[in-house]
């Protein structure tokens, strides 16, 4: 409870800070929205050219695309502090977190809740609901709940990636763009149905880095589709939990990196 209270206080401060620059914030949000819409045109172009993708229609693919967009935007919004941990270490601001009697992880999370990411959220939501309006899906309470619970699990997954990035940048004092392979590259991957990739790749994003578990498999259930890699049809109901487990493991890594930092003082 105490932690939530502190996080709330941080969030409030962060919003107030950003609202000091309203005009620029609005422009950036608009910019992000437009860029992501332009990016979506790639998917549209290819479907326009080829008609379908391994039996997926544009609307079905857009469902996945929108879902991962929503999840990533929210995660991005929440984890700005983890993303720039390397910069904070170099500027010495990171030491300030250690000088306060609270969890360093929580302080990093609270550092900035980046409102401009909401532009991307708007794009994800726009495409997601566009896809929903074009698809005639059979909804049930269970499916709605599945979508509602896979979103926080997905956020946990991306937060886990960012946590690993923060942990590694604590160890190397560099900003680690290569983690972008997994974050932005992951988003890129998840924008197409996982079934189009080679098996090795699909296994990697299911079992090692469980991105598919939080976006693709739950989508299969809602869209009434199946996948050859995991033949059990119910997998998508429980797979989002992998996102939570992934965050848990990342936090362990983060704690270790922190104690390393304190002992070497780079």
């Amino acid at each position, binding site marked *: 409870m105490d932690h939530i209270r502190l996080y709330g206080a941080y969030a409030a401060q962060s919003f107030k800070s950003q609202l000091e620059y309203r005009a620029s914030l609005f422009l950036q949000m608009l910019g992000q929205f437009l860029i992501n819409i332009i990016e979506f045109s790639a998917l549209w172009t290819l479907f326009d050219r080829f008609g379908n993708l391994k039996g997926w229609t544009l609307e079905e693919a857009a469902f996945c695309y929108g879902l991962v967009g929503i999840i990533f935007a929210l995660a991005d919004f929440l984890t700005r502090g983890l993303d720039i941990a390397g910069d904070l270490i170099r500027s010495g601001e990171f030491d300030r977190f250690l000088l306060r009697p609270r969890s360093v992880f929580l302080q990093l999370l609270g550092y900035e809740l980046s409102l401009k990411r909401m532009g991307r959220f708007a794009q994800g939501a726009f495409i997601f609901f566009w896809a929903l309006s074009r698809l005639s899906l059979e909804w049930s309470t269970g499916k709605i709940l599945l979508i509602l619970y896979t979103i926080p699990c997905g956020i946990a997954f991306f937060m886990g990636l960012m946590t690993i990035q923060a942990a590694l940048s604590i160890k190397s004092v560099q900003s680690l763009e290569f983690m972008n392979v997994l974050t932005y590259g992951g988003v890129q991957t998840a924008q197409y149905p996982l079934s189009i990739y080679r098996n090795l790749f699909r296994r990697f994003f299911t079992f090692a880095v469980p991105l598919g578990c939080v976006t693709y498999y739950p989508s299969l259930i809602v869209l009434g589709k199946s996948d050859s890699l995991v033949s059990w049809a119910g997998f998508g109901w429980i797979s989002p939990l992998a996102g939570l487990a992934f965050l848990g493991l990342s936090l362990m890594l983060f704690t270790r990196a922190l104690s390393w930092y304190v002992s070497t*003082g780079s």
Partner: protein
Amino acid sequence: MSGIEVRNLVKTYRIAEREKGLSGSVKGLFKRHIREIRALDGISFSIGRGELVGYIGPNGAGKSTTVKVLSGILVPDGGRCTVNGRIPWESRKEHVARIGTVFGQKSQLWWDLPVEESFDLLKEIYRLSDKQYKETLGELTELFELKELYPVPVRQMSLGQRMRCDMAAALIHSPDTVFLDEPTIGLDAVAKLTLRELISRINREKGVTVILTTHDMDDVEALCRRVMLIGHGRILRDGTVEDLRRAYKDGSEVELEEVVRRLYREEALR
């Protein structure tokens, strides 16, 4: 055990070096040389509760490493250290809840917000009760004359004003020990005098132990009875300001700054 006890602290850093020039940059893509630097080479001292000690020495002498160890954010390679009975790095959160830090070069305040908001957030961070917070803040507001600064965003403050706020922020949780790292850097003469007066009053009236690292010998002369001079990771001199002067026989007329410079050169040659 009261006060600060430091015995034989040792700390070595490993630093990656890069060669100069274009070819060096290319080589740096693949491998780097590691060099070891001994930042603390067996440092010992003790400071009583409520003392105000000046900690001086040139850049890279080990001042900030010492402060980092004492404040619990760096674990030494060897040696012992307690601050009011606590081993800083063993229980970081408990320890840092009882100390305050000010870095002259960096502010801990939230840049875009009125300073009052920063204080409110610190209240949450240090888990202060409403009563405790109101009391301390009231005291500090009066002492540092902060009332008229409350609605001003930190980015619009003068350096002197910001420093006063930063000092108040470091004291809001009533720490027993305070580390001040070049608090007067960049301040104009008037602001310096004000700040020194404030430091001295905190030390006297609240009984807070103060360790002051600085390059400004006027700070030292105005504030500290005791001075520790550090160089190459060792304590070179530890005594009163007069002791330091006396170490230079003909130095009664010489500025303290000059005394320190000569002492330092002498030690470096040894």
